[in-house]
């Protein structure tokens, strides 16, 4: 039953992801790519738990994962923000 719940979550998230991204203008493809790339650094959360293990091999492997995932997360969000900071609208217009 537990696995089936996880599968349900998986299926729903896939459909939701598809709905969310469909029809994004090409203007935003690159920042969208790097922004969602940063989200995939969520492995960090999984890595943290493992890095805290008593078993030395486990915790070292986990710590390595923490390191790489952190690069992905920090770097990804910062790069995306830098890109998006440059998207400006002509003053006075309203959002579209």
């Amino acid at each position, binding site marked *: 039953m537990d696995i089936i719940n996880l599968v349900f979550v998986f299926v729903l998230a896939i459909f939701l992801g598809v709905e969310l991204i469909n029809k994004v203008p090409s203007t935003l493809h690159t*920042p969208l790519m790097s922004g969602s790339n940063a989200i995939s650094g*969520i492995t960090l959360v999984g890595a943290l738990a493992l890095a*805290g293990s008593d078993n030395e091999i486990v915790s070292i*492997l986990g710590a390595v994962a923490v390191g790489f995932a952190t690069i*992905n997360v920090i770097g990804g969000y910062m790069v995306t923000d830098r890109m998006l900071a440059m998207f400006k609208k*002509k003053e006075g217009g309203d959002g579209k």
Partner: protein
Amino acid sequence: MSTEIIDLVYIAAAILFIVGLKFLGSPATARKGNVISSIGMAIAVIATLFTKGLNFELIIGGFVIGGLIGAVVARKVEMTSMPEMVALFNGFGGLASLFVGWSALKATASPEVFFLVTVFLSILIGGLTFTGSLLAYGKLSERISGRPFVYAGQRIVNSGILLAVVVCAVLFIQNPADQNWLYLAVGLSLLLGVMFVLPIGGADMPVVISLLNSFSGIAAAAAGFAIGNILLIVAGSLVGASGIILTNIMCKAMNRSLSNVLFSGFGTVSTSSGPVIEQGEVKPMSADDAYYVLEAASSVVVIPGYGMAVAQAQHVVKELQELLEHNGAEVVYAIHPVAGRMPGHMNVLLAEADVPYDLLLEMDQINPRMETFDVAIIIGANDVVNPAAREVESSPIYGMPVINADQAQTVFVLKRSMASGFAGIDNPLFFKENTRMLFGDAKETLGNLVKAFD
């Protein structure tokens, strides 16, 4: 913190990711969306740190090193190198999934089959993502040749590797104590990432990166299944699905199928291929003469392409725009979806130069009114304005939607030579009656135009 509270935080984080992704889909809210998503990440990480019995030394080590590298690289990187940066970060994400899977395996004494399958998936997809992304990085940053590397039997070799991986998987799952099969599979998956990206040309890398991004999401989701962490599943699947869709949108914009992008080695041909249909006289023009035309123009459309990126001409373009506007002309930009070498390439560059994004019109908006423009200034674009896509049925790009620059009253083409663009085909536009060639580096030519105005 009790696990219930951590779970609630995870739900909040998932919601923030969803809302963040939604906001990322519209120019007006995209930056906010990225911040929202990063807040989701932050609270998820902080909540996880409250799990009992963590070994903080190692964790902090990982944080500090990874955080420093990420932050420094993200700050230092040039705007023009964004695509390769994204590829690199993506590769690290894949590598992290590989290590999470591996670590989870070591942590489990008597693993079940479901666990083994998901661990295996997270390791393999993670590994493939890692090497594939590294290679994409290399090609984009021109550390290695961007040329597609094609050889006969490529698909057979790749299928063979994939099959070998599956065999390893079966053998490993039957006897998880013997981890040699796993190591072999890891090696094969690293190899597969390389073989997968090798035949793809540098200019198709954005599609590949988006696909690899999707893979890294799937790898994270697989890791989530393995360690039973639902947030990994949600976030990973969201990224997995959105990456696939994004890949698909990009292919559509180039009027090519995904398999054509992945397997065809597009861009191999570097010299003119088909017969040149419409030859004629090339009419060069000096910047000074062009100035008089621009001075008299009341509406101008700027069509940038890859050459603008090469020449780093975005700032001087903006200067010219302001001068023209000051002179009473309407100036808009026409952006082809695959102009440049990554999707949204032109948008990012022009945004860097502070061009308001509501001046950037998409192809479908601009084509119907192209005739109304006095001058079209083509800055280092070639394929995306090639009328052969409309007129020459034998052309390799026939059918690709292009910007109909030739329909403007006068067309200025700024490029250095008569060389062809990425697709390696001739461009009949250069020989049209109303076309004038302004040869030279785009930045220099534009600089001369600006000077003429002062």
